[in-house]
């Protein structure tokens, strides 16, 4: 056991640090720092900078545009990236559908989509969940019926994040209703401009618009837009979810937000002294800091197991549960640090329209929005309850 990095790794770490401090645009940093959703233009601009540097998709194989880094280097990059306060790269293209395409896609699909994912010229969205199919995703009922060289798609998706920004959707559809649920699903790539696709906004608790319903009314999708085999979509969907869990511990992001919490607690006061000096509050910060340290070391330990060639099973579920709870706890404490100003919540769009500046201290803006949105961290990508079921089954054999 050895926790230190090699000299090469340290040099790499410095390179990433320098790049981040020089290249991350101030406006992109500001929204990310506050925990606000990035605007489309901002995140695309930033992703293009990353792309130019060749760092947009470090996990991809080199032949498809990946960085060719070791697992340790990927880990270091991820750390430095988030410690710089950068927003997460929109996952739908880079971490979700991209790997599915280069693993299972046809040459045509690879040629058509991969480079536009890397360059952020296409925005993708994830069409998995449906009103009747959430945790039980395999019960999805959006139907695709073959008609010559097209599928005709009818049905509805829901909770589709940023569908209103999207050019393309990767979508799970039912192509065979007469077999076991998992066996009759196909994985389609749907152009959002196809006639019959309707996107309706869902306003969230934070009063912001990130979620959508997507309706399909006789949408004709070319058969060549199917990834892999018909009725094998569940395999690709699960492969994708496995990739999604790679960044799920969000240790570095939480470290950044923890530092921000401390910074705010230094500026807020408690009976004339800085809040951070209050023993009760400090103890609560310390508690979450140590939880985070435990998570970081759990993540490192799993990483080292992977490097040593062990195959993980449901360990990412452990990272997901703890990571989400820690992120929620940090935001909860940050809200608490604001005192009464926690109650003075205005959504982002309203604040922007205000000509007399945001309510309360500048750092308060965004905290409640993020706190509200973070409630979803224990729901999406497999809820905490579902993750525990997975741990109980796959690790513990219960």
């Amino acid at each position, binding site marked *: 056991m050895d926790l230190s990095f090699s000299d090469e790794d340290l040099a790499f770490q410095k390179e990433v640090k320098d790049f981040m401090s020089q290249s991350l645009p101030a406006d992109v940093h500001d929204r990310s720092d506050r925990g606000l959703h990035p605007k489309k233009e901002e995140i695309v601009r930033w992703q293009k900078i990353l792309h130019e540097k060749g760092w947009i998709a470090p996990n991809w194989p080199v032949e498809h545009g990946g960085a060719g880094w070791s697992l340790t280097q990927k880990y270091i990059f991820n750390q430095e990236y988030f410690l710089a306060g950068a927003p997460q790269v929109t996952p739908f293209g880079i971490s979700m559908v991209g790997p599915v395409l280069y693993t299972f896609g046809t040459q045509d699909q690879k040629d058509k989509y991969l480079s536009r994912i890397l360059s952020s010229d296409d925005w993708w969205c994830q069409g998995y*969940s449906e009103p*009747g199919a*959430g*945790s*039980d995703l395999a*019960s999805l009922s959006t139907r695709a019926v073959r008609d010559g060289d097209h599928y005709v798609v009818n049905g509805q998706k*829901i*909770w589709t994040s940023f569908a209103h920004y999207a050019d393309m959707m990767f979508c799970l559809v039912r192509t065979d209703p007469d077999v076991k649920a998992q066996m009759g699903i196909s994985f389609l790539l749907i152009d959002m401009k196809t006639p019959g696709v309707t996107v309706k906004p*869902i*306003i*969230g*608790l934070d*009063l912001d618009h990130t*979620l959508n319903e997507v309706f399909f009314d006789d949408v004709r999708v070319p058969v060549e837009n199917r990834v892999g085999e018909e009725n094998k979509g569940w395999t690709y969907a699960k492969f994708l979810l496995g990739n999604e869990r790679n960044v799920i511990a969000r240790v570095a992001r939480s470290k950044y937000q923890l530092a921000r919490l401390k910074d705010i607690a230094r500026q*807020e*006061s*408690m*009976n*004339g002294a800085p*809040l951070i000096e209050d023993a*009760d*509050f400090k103890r*609560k910060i310390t508690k979450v800091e140590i939880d985070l340290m435990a998570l970081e070391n759990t993540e490192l330990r799993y990483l080292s197991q992977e490097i040593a060639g062990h195959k993980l099973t449901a360990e990412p579920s452990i990272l997901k549960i703890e990571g989400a709870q820690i992120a929620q706890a940090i935001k909860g404490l940050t*809200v*608490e640090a604001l*005192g*009464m*100003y*926690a*109650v*003075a*919540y*205005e959504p982002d769009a*309203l604040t922007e329209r205000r000509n*007399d500046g945001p*309510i*309360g*201290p500048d750092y308060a803006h965004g905290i*409640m929005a993020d706190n*509200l949105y973070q*409630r*979803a961290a*224990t*729901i*999406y990508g497999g*809820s*905490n*309850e579902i993750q*525990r079921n997975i741990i109980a089954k796959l690790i513990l054999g219960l």
Partner: protein
Amino acid sequence: MDFELSEEQTMLKDSLDRFVRENYEPAKRRALVDSNLGYSKENWALFAEMGWLGLPFSEDSGGFGGSPVETSVLMESFGAGLVLEPYLSTVLLCGKLIEAAGSETQRSEILPAVIGGEMLLALALSEPRSRFNLANVETVAASSTDGFVITGRKTVVSHAASADKLIVSCRTSGAAQDQSGISLFLVDQNVSGLSRKDYRTLDGQRASDLELAGVTVGEDALLGELGGGHAVLEAVIDQATCAICAEAVGAMQAVNEITMEYVKTRQQFGAPIGSNQVIKHRIADMHIAAEQSKSMADMAAMRVDGPPEERRLVTSAAKSKVGEAARFVGEQGIQLHGGIGMTDEYVIGHYYKRLMSIDTVFGNVDFHLRRYSEMT
């Protein structure tokens, strides 16, 4: 020993619940939240007609002589419906302050108008650095030839925009955080030197930040004794704190009912999600949290008008317990709904927001744990 409601209290509860059922279905509430005012004037007039605005005032003041128990009955029903009218600020805070500390003239000028629904009031208490401590007052009222000049900033003043008059806590002597030297002043809404920044709060209610830049008031604006405002403020805030504990209980019970109904009907994996043991246990825990809170809120309502020492203890005990339960129940209400719980359209999130606000207002869990532990 009796935790049961009397016949009269039951009638009161029935009429409150009926009001909530008829006027606070989610679509109607949403329309109020989105309106300019943020609540309904018709509802307010109805409150007056029903006698609810006079409920906690003595018969001498023109009220109905209700005890904190009646107030808790009312607030519990309001909590279940997420009622938006400024009852807390006008009646339970300012009205009660005026009843407790006001001169004969102040009482007779203001209280009948409050009880009749013609006057609205708001309490300007918190400041950028006050953090729940009522003695942390930096807004200064300096005496002048014929009165006082008030200078300072007040934050998150609930329903300030619709108030006819404000009560402002000011320092007239002593150092920051001294309990003595705090005085209360009645300030008219349209007085010169007062500027307001209005906004919607997390829970859909209304609040403002106030800037008092040399606001001049007469001697007659002083409410209660010069420099003696802290004691009366603390007493009234403690009562109001117990009242919002009851409000939280009503909200938690509603969350539990809605969630229970949802997990019975929502199907995943071919069965209601509520058939999973983890969901059953979670709801059982939510129910326990609401039950424990209900006991504390009831106990506090029965004891909060006791001697100051007792009042402080029961208030802080109740608020710390309720604050913790409110967060837990609010968060799990969302969690057990999954995606739908994350939407503005569905009601569960609105309960979460109000419960979070209640946990914050008048001091959060830490504040009250500390206050309690310092007394014991």
